[in-house]
């Protein structure tokens, strides 16, 4: 992953990425990436929640509101949920949430979902690298920045 720290191509823009991950699969997957010293870009900030079932759409909106250029939501694969069904409930809500975002024109290329298990350190590292690279390509999320910075209406 040599390109990961090289951002010359995108004239110095370093995306801000907020990741909401579940405690039992993806968080541990990220731990494993560490234990195996798998390097990936430093752009991501991980927020640990017990389960993807706990991840509310308002959190994603909030992430955009604080200026995230991309958001990651990740948890256990179907069938692996530590709480047996949290990820299934989450999957449903995401399906619907994407619909309204689509109509609103929120760029879905900036909101990423993944199943990453505690054993998939490699997948985590690769996933973060890919999201970072893609977001570098897309550039800062100016459309939402405009919303944030707009004067009182």
């Amino acid at each position, binding site marked *: 992953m040599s390109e990961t*720290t090289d951002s010359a191509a995108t004239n110095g823009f370093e995306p801000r990425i907020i990741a909401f991950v579940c405690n039992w699969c993806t968080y541990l997957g990220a731990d494993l990436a560490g234990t195996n010293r798998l390097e990936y870009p430093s752009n991501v900030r991980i*927020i640990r929640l017990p*389960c993807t079932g706990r991840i509310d759409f308002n959190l994603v909106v909030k992430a955009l509101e604080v200026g995230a250029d991309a958001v990651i939501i990740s948890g256990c694969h179907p069938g692996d949920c530590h709480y047996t069904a949290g990820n299934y409930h*989450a999957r449903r809500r995401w399906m619907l949430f994407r619909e309204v975002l689509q109509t609103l024109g929120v760029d879905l290329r900036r909101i990423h979902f993944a199943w990453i298990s505690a054993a998939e350190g490699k997948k985590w590292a690769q996933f973060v690298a890919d999201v970072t690279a893609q977001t570098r390509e897309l550039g800062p999320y100016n459309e939402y920045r405009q919303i944030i910075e707009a004067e009182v209406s």
Partner: protein
Amino acid sequence: MSRIGVFTCWCGENIARMVDVQRVTETIAQVPGVRVAVNYKYMCSDPGQASIRDKIVEEKLDGLVVAACSPHMHLKTFRRAAAAAGLNPYLVEMANIREHCSWVHKDKELATAKAIEIIRMAVEKVRRNHALQPIRVPMTKRALVVGGGVAGIQAALDIADAGYEVVLVERDPSIGGKMAGLSETFPTLDCSQCILTPRMVEVGQHPRIKLHTYSEVEGVEGFVGNFKVQIRKKARYVDMIKCTGCGDCWAVCPSKKNLSEFDQGMGYRKAIYIPFPQAVPARPVIDKEACLYLKNGKCGVCAKKCVPQAINFSDQDEVITEEVGAVIVATGYRLYNITKDQDNSKLTGYGEYGYGLYKDVIDGLQFERLASASGPTGGAIKRPSDGAEPKKIVFISCVGSRDEQHGMTYCSKICCMYVAKHAMLYKHKVHDGEAHIFYMDIRAGGKNYEEFVRRAIEQDGAVYHRGRVSKITQENGKLVVRGADTLLGQPVTIEADMVVLASAMRPSEGATRLAQMLNVGVDEFGFLSESHPKLRPVETNAAGVFICGACHAPKDIPEAVAQASAAAGKVAIMFANEELTRDPEVASVNELTCAACFTCVRACPYTAIEKAMVLDGRGNFIKNTARVNPGLCMGCGTCVAVCPSKSVDLEGFSEEQIYSQVESLAL
């Protein structure tokens, strides 16, 4: 203004190499509410923890952030340290700057910047942590054991001997399960009944074991520590108290030709019967399908003969409720049958073995009855079709097991051993007999197991063919078994008098239904799922429910017994406490703002949320509300996400905590 202490760990070089801990410390020290920020080489070491404890006291800290490794690694450690210094352990958070930072980045500048933000997030979170006390739930110190096989018996006796009451429920008229029907057991060849029946008697006589035979669990309510279990006691038509078990009734019963379940259909029993002489309880039942009186009102000689007048033809099923604090499932196994119709669409049966239509093709448990001294043949090996002594028997292992074609991928584990045992027993009884065994691999892992198999081959001359049997056909009175010997690399055809199939072990009937009642998961084959394959092997994801024996996976007797004792141990540990204490990081509802749409009730994976009412002091109805049962909540937070008014929140991952974490990342 809060007084938070931030302790940054170098983890030797692991963190310090890539993160400028000094700068981190200085920067964090500036964050409002941070009282002290220090760094140290090894925070988890004794001196490290000591320094934390001292600072807590000196600075009267009300919040703690340890910036070091993953919380999965050391959160408990540091919470303990805090508690030792008098700080509520739930006021401690960790900032993972090792696994999630120093170990995965190569640019010290970026890594340091990231570390600072990670710690800031933790500071913002811990600022909003609440001091929590472990949840205490009163419990009924009484255990339910479902299944009276060897595992259930062991579990029940261990718990009872530990001083707690046990309710043991068995579907059949007697406890004993499959083991009671076995002839002799590997690798010692000691008689199964000789070792089991004394244990059965112990159960029957134990002052703290309440036995419900001929009964089934019908419903389960409640949660860990406080289960209410409905048990259907099937009509027995015999008054257990009046009956003395003298046996006059079954002696005179005219209905003889009923296949004996205990003898695996190899022998017959009366309509009123005890399954086997050493049955516990030694009280008969009447098979209402077979009883002439119950079928057409004629007969009733047993009632006439019964001196204590224990026969009660008007007996009815009865559903009783038992209150228990823990449940052990020990429902055991059944054998895969090779017939065409199966209960599961994935299973196909064995057309190549004649779909079980050949009388002299039997399964392992049937052979056990043939070989058993107490069996229908008194221990003489006679084939079912004509009672002749088979001079040549073919034993086939892995029937169903390890055979995707027929729906099952797993190894049934015990077959290699009992096939060898069967070959031995046969040779011991029929000296001039030939025992041929078709196998895929011989899996004889276990104390004295391999030696046992060698004995079967070397001393008793069992002939092993490494290969599968492709077809069994019947030619003029013989069973023609066609297979391959892959070691010789040639087809083998054996004209046998009898074939014994080592059929796969499957979870016993109804196990899945029971699992659902208890909120326990099952795998694709219906075996109950343990909570963790390595570290929580007898626990399940349903608090207070434990598993042991073959309901969990194929197992032999020693394993089932060991696991049963383990499960009993877990229950005893639970009961040893005054009340249940559970992790307080659970959800709770703001009942005043709850709109009672009950989306959370539908979403909760643990049925931990109930529909409740808010009442005023006089008990008048004010409003409906959702209410979390802290005894059941596992803290996943799914309810929080689906609550439109955010009237439910989760301790440890509260809305305030998470949002402030996100906001701390604001540009």
